[in-house]
């Protein structure tokens, strides 16, 4: 008895589970190696080994930053802010009804309308705002408007998804109580649903605005206005000192907007 017990080695997993785990890791590694091979087929390794030199070269050309360029960036900065803010507002206007159609408890038809709303959400979310901008610049021409619409189209899915999840999580007894007073559907939404989702809604909006500031800084790369436009110009003319200034400005903007959004969310909750 004692002999048998002392020779048995305790294992965390049974042998078959252990094997399966190792097999899983092996498959993962093999898959990674395969992907790596495919990906690097066209890679020119000379460029890669050359990279440190390139980096040093560009680095040396990027300093000192050309601070005199800043006045030229004020209008683009203003445009960037507007793209993010107006885009977010436009997105909210469209996302709110979509969210109500997508939430199980407020959707007029779970079988027909809800899948449609979910399709809108997933399409909007799958496509990055830069791609939306690419399409819109082609359609309505370059400029701030294309940027606003691109930001709006990308944000619909984000806002609507988080909002409909918030709607599905509300306390049903409050809805029941308002329904029991003989309130109409729209009154129930106004009195029982909206008050419950308002904090979540405000938080989502500010959060998305923060992300949109980040994204709108580069939309100009495809012609949709804002700072990215100046970035594109500077890179095309190899004006690296200006690029540095723009990069720093973007960095500061992103940090600022993150700070603002954190403060606002903190104040709401």
């Amino acid at each position, binding site marked *: 008895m004692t002999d048998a017990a002392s020779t048995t080695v305790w294992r965390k997993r049974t042998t078959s589970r252990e094997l399966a785990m190792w097999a899983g890791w092996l498959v993962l590694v093999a898959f990674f190696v395969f992907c790596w091979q495919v990906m690097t087929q066209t890679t020119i390794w000379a460029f890669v080994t050359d990279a440190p030199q390139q980096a040093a070269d560009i680095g040396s050309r990027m300093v000192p930053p050309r601070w005199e360029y800043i006045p030229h960036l004020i209008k683009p900065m203003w445009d960037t802010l507007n793209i993010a803010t107006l885009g977010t507002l436009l997105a909210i206007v469209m996302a709110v009804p979509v969210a109500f159609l997508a939430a199980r408890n407020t959707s007029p038809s779970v079988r027909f309308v809800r899948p449609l709303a979910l399709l809108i959400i997933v399409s909007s979310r799958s496509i990055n705002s830069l791609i939306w901008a690419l399409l819109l610049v082609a359609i309505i021409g370059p400029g701030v408007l294309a940027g606003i619409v691109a930001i709006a189209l990308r944000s619909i899915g984000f806002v609507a998804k988080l909002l409909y999840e918030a709607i599905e999580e509300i306390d049903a007894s409050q809805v029941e*109580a308002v329904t029991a*007073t003989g*309130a109409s559907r729209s009154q129930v939404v106004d009195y*029982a649903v909206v008050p419950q989702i308002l904090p979540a809604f405000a938080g989502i909006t500010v959060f998305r605005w923060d992300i949109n500031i980040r994204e709108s800084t580069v939309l100009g790369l495809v012609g949709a206005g804002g700072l990215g436009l100046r970035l594109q110009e500077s890179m095309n003319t190899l004006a690296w000192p200006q690029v540095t200034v723009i990069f720093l400005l973007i960095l500061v903007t992103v940090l600022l907007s993150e700070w603002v959004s954190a403060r606002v969310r903190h104040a709401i909750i």
Partner: protein
Amino acid sequence: MLRLNDLTKVYATGDRALSGVTFTVEPGQVVGLIGPSGAGKSTLIRCVNRLIEPTSGQVFLGDIDVTKLSRRGLRQVRRRIGMIFQEYALVERLTVMENVLSGRLGYVGFWRSFFRRFPPEAVEKAYRLLDRVGLSDQVDKRADALSGGQRQRVGIARALEQDPDLLLVDEPTASLDPKTSRQIMRLIVEICDESGLPAIINIHDVALAQQFVRRIIGLQAGVVVFDGNPADLDAEVLTRIYGEEDWSATIRKADDEESGDAGDDVLPKTSDPVSEVIDRERLAGLT
């Protein structure tokens, strides 16, 4: 006033919550509905205003068969039926006043309610009700800033703001401490007596039911197994409703309370000056 005829509810899962429930509530009568959890008490009162659709049977409010109504008709009936909930079910992020005024939603159009522009008489009534339940100084507070007893008072005011012909009360004291429970029950019964308002009160606390209502209906597995005077609730009846158990303590406790503080806790007789009770109520309830 209210007549249930052969009311049956079978849920989609196949659970039979109510089978063939038939009884009548007379004008001004306050009925206590007792029974173990899962007996169908909640389902029963929600079938009356069709928050839950009954499977078969009829609900008559006056001459109207509630089960046959269209959506619009249902809204009109619902506004005549006030409802008070177990966990208060106040809209927590709205002010006390908005919660009370929401009892008026069945009477006003969407835009009026959206801009909170309720008719002057509705606002006046809301103020009066809040004064009546002892909350006149909490009007602009948010509902989630109130204590449990205060919230239930708002719930009562909301139901009364509807100008109801019937009150449905679902476990009004389940989340309250014993003292507040008695205050709330007394308040509900008083209000019903004042205006001859009939009510059905779901309650799991037998002693509390015995203390405050004059008619008790016992529900067991969706079937009415007792309907009568609280005094007739003996061990045999309680066993029929709840199952085998030593009931002597429960019954005696109820008796004790009845005899012990008769002048204080028993529901107000007609001779008892109501205003005095209300004042006491306010002093006790507001802290």
